[in-house]
Structure formats: C-alpha cells, structure tokens
C-alpha cells in the first residue's frame, strides 16, 4: 500500500502539495487525475523518492520513503518501474540494450537469460524482434511501449506511468491504456499508478481514481462514484467548462 500523510511541498512561494493525504490500494490500477501543473508529477516524484516533502510522510508498504538514506532509497527504487512522459529511452542504445539496462544493473541473470527476458517483455508490449532498432527509428507509440517494456523488465512491485497517452492519437492512447490494464492483470503483485488528465481512460481503466486540485485530494473513489458525483469541482473538470469553482491563475 502507498500512503501520503499530510504531505506539503512548495517550490519558492508556490505551494504545490498542501497537506495531501491519500492511500493507494495494492495490486490495483489507480489513476491520479487533475489539472496540468496541479501537482500530479510532484506526487509521483515523492513516491520514487526523487523529491522529499517539506513536511508530512510518504509510506510504501509501511516504509517511510522520505526517511530513507541514499543506499536504502536505491534499494527501494529497484522495486519501482516508471514510464516517463516522453519514454526517456537512452538514445545511444538500441531497443534491446535499453530493456537490458535494468536487468544488467540489478539482476544476477546470465546474459542468455536476460536476452530471453528482453524478448519476453517486448513481445508482451507487442514489439517482438525490435531489439536492434534505435529509439530515433521508432514512432512515439513504439517508444512508449519500449519504455514500458524497460520498466517491466525487472518485474517491479509498483509501476508508475507519467501521462502515458499525452500527445497521442486516440487509437494509440487506447492501446496504451489497454496495455496498462493487461500488464497489471498479468503481474499479480503489481500496483499501477497512472498520472493523467485523460478522463475517458481513467473511467475505463482505473480501479480507483484520485482527483487532485490545488495540492489537495478533492475526491477519491471508484470510477462509478466519479460518474455519479455531484461535486461541483469534479463536474467542472469532467465537463471541461471554464466557469465553475475551479480557479484559474
């Protein structure tokens, strides 16, 4: 289980997280949604330990992440996989080398076993026999899928997706959303957290949704609860109207 307990984070005078508290269930797909610049990526960076809260605590499996030292945080990160918004593939490496990278760094598998695993995860994301191509030769959707394969290679306990479908056409978006659900189903111990402002995807794919507004959790619940809620903030966000209680700077 992942839990935020009164987490506050500011950058200069800008308050990004304001006593944020929530819990994320294990082995489920949770979407964190909210406006751009609303603190979603900052939230995810706290889960990885790339940022530390100004106050409050972040727990993963009852372990306070923000209190871990450098070595412990490195060990903890081995349990995490992340798909970056732009995939963040190493462009000097081939697709195969990219997926091989975390395996080489953190497992004691033999090279043939690693190569089998690389083929396995690439097949899982629908890109078999792509090992020898370079990221520059791939489409945006393919890059994302390779990024996902790389994140999955070490079988992480927590998978984080940072806006996985931003800037993609509807077909590729749907394919990535389906892949997220498929990966979670095929890995029984995996908890998936998706940062997104794609409401359709959240309602279709999530087990739980957390809606963030002004650095706080405005609503948390099942997709069905979000469909039927009368909360004016959520309704405004869902309808995409400018008029409403949500403030625009």
């Amino acid at each position, binding site marked *: 289980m992942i839990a935020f307990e009164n987490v506050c984070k500011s950058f200069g005078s800008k308050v990004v997280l304001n006593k944020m508290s929530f819990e994320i269930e294990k082995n489920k797909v949770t979407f964190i949604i909210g406006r751009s610049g609303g603190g979603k990526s900052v939230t995810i960076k706290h889960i990885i330990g790339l940022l530390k809260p100004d106050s409050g605590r972040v727990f993963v499996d009852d372990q306070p992440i923000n209190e871990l030292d450098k070595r412990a945080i490195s060990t903890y*990160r081995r349990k995490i996989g*992340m798909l970056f918004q732009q995939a963040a593939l190493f462009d000097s490496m081939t697709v195969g080398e990219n997926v091989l990278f975390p395996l080489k760094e953190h497992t004691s598998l033999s090279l043939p076993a690693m190569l089998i695993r690389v083929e396995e995860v690439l097949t899982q994301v629908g890109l078999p026999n792509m090992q020898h191509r370079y990221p520059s030769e791939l489409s945006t959707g393919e890059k994302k899928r390779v990024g996902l394969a790389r994140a999955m290679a070490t079988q992480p306990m927590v998978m984080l997706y940072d806006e996985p479908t931003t800037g993609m056409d509807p077909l590729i978006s749907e394919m990535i959303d389906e892949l997220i659900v498929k990966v979670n189903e095929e890995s029984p111990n995996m908890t998936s957290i998706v940062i997104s402002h794609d409401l359709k995807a959240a309602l279709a794919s999530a087990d739980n949704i957390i809606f963030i507004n002004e650095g706080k959790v405005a609503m948390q619940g099942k997709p069905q609860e979000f469909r039927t809620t009368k909360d004016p903030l959520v309704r405004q966000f869902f309808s995409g109207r400018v008029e409403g209680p949500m403030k625009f700077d």
Partner: protein
Amino acid sequence: MQSAIQFVEYVGRQVLRVKHKSESFYDYWKEFWYWMSRGPYRLPLVFKQLEFIGNQSLFVLILSGSAIGAVFGIEIGGIFKIFTAQNLMGIATSITLCREIAPLITAVLLAGRAGSSMAAEIATMKVNEQIDAMETMAVNPVSYLVVPRVIAATIMTPLLTALFILIGVIGTYGVGIFLFQVDKGIFISKMLAFTNTSDLVAGMEKAVVFGFVFSLISCWYGLIAKGGAKGVGLATTRAVIASLLALLACDFVITYIQIEFVGR
C-alpha cells in the same frame, strides 16, 4: 539611490548564485569520490570512452602537434640564429614541449573536442529525462556516466600528451633540418643529452591532472543542464570555458609546486 539599491541587489544575487553553484559542485565532488572509491567501474564503458577520447582525437592531435612543433621551430630557430646557436633548437623545443606546451595544448584540444561532447551528451540526457529514468532505475548517474569518462580522460590525456611531444619534436626537427640547416645528429644528441626524465615526468603529472579536471568539469555542466536545446548549448559552452580556465589555473599551480617544492 535607486540604482545603488539595484547594484546591491545584483551583487547579492551573484553571491548567492556562486554560493549555490559551489555547494552543488561540492556535492558532486563528494558523490564522484564516493563512487570512485567503491565502484562499480564498468570497464566496457571505460574502454568505449578511451576509444572516443583517444582514437577519435588522434587526427586533430597529430595535425596540431606537427603544426605547433614546426611553428615553434621557426620561432626558436629565428632567435637562436642571431646567436648562431640553431643546434640548440632541439633542446629548447623538447623541454618546452615536455614541461608545458604538450600537456596544456593536448588538454585544451581534448576539452574542446571530448569535453564539449561529454557535456552535450549528458546535458541532452538530462533535458530529455534520461538521467531521471536512470535514477528511477536505481542507477546513479555519476557512477554510470561520470566515473568511466573521468577514468578514461585521466588515462588518455598523458598518453596523447606523449604522442604530442613526439609529433611536435618531429615538426621542429623538420624545420631545423630543412630551414635552418641544423645537423641531424647534433639536433638529436643535444636534445637527448639535455632533456631529462624529470621534464617528461613534470609534463605527465600535468597531463594526468588536466585530464581529470576537464572531464570532471565537463560532466558536471552536463548534469546541471536545464531547459531544452538552449540549455544543452549553454551547458556545452560553459563546460568548455570553465575547463579552459581551470586548466590554466591548474597549470600555474602545478608549475609552481613542481619548481618550488619538488625541484623539477
């Protein structure tokens, strides 16, 4: 009054900027030595960097070495001719090349070619979130990107300096023989008789430090890059300028130590 306040504000901001940069470099320095002392050293990456710094710099180094040796020969030969002492050209050139010119010019060339490339590559990785991805995969960027580059530059700079000395001396030799009609045997015998091992050692000591300094600085500017393409450009430019200034400062300090304290 208003402009005085603005001036004080400006000075304050600059002081804070320098303080912030110094703290950031100190953290990087500590991080570097932490990973340098415990490994892993990733030998395949070190060899890749050795090839990149060494093999791919050979052409420019040979061209510069022969040109500088020849120009140096012309200048020295012209002066020595006044005293009919052209035969001593070899001594002057080899000692100067060993102690000063070869290590400095080699390091300057490498800072411009390899150092700028290191800064640009790492900066591009930084602005494209590749460094974040690396950290998320529990791989320390200093350990993976910086340590192999610094090891390779520290090994390769003295080797290339030795090559520069050889090529430079050949350049001067050519000028001495063909332009100043110096006897071949006298040129070589006097050069060998008066150039000591300590001159070569003094140059190699500098080369080791120079290789370490330019690579460490270049990688750092890559790691602190911000923004997009502009950030990469800025990081590269700053890396080269800072490396050159640091090389000159190190050259002064090492020369002083060598002469005053070591007696080389």
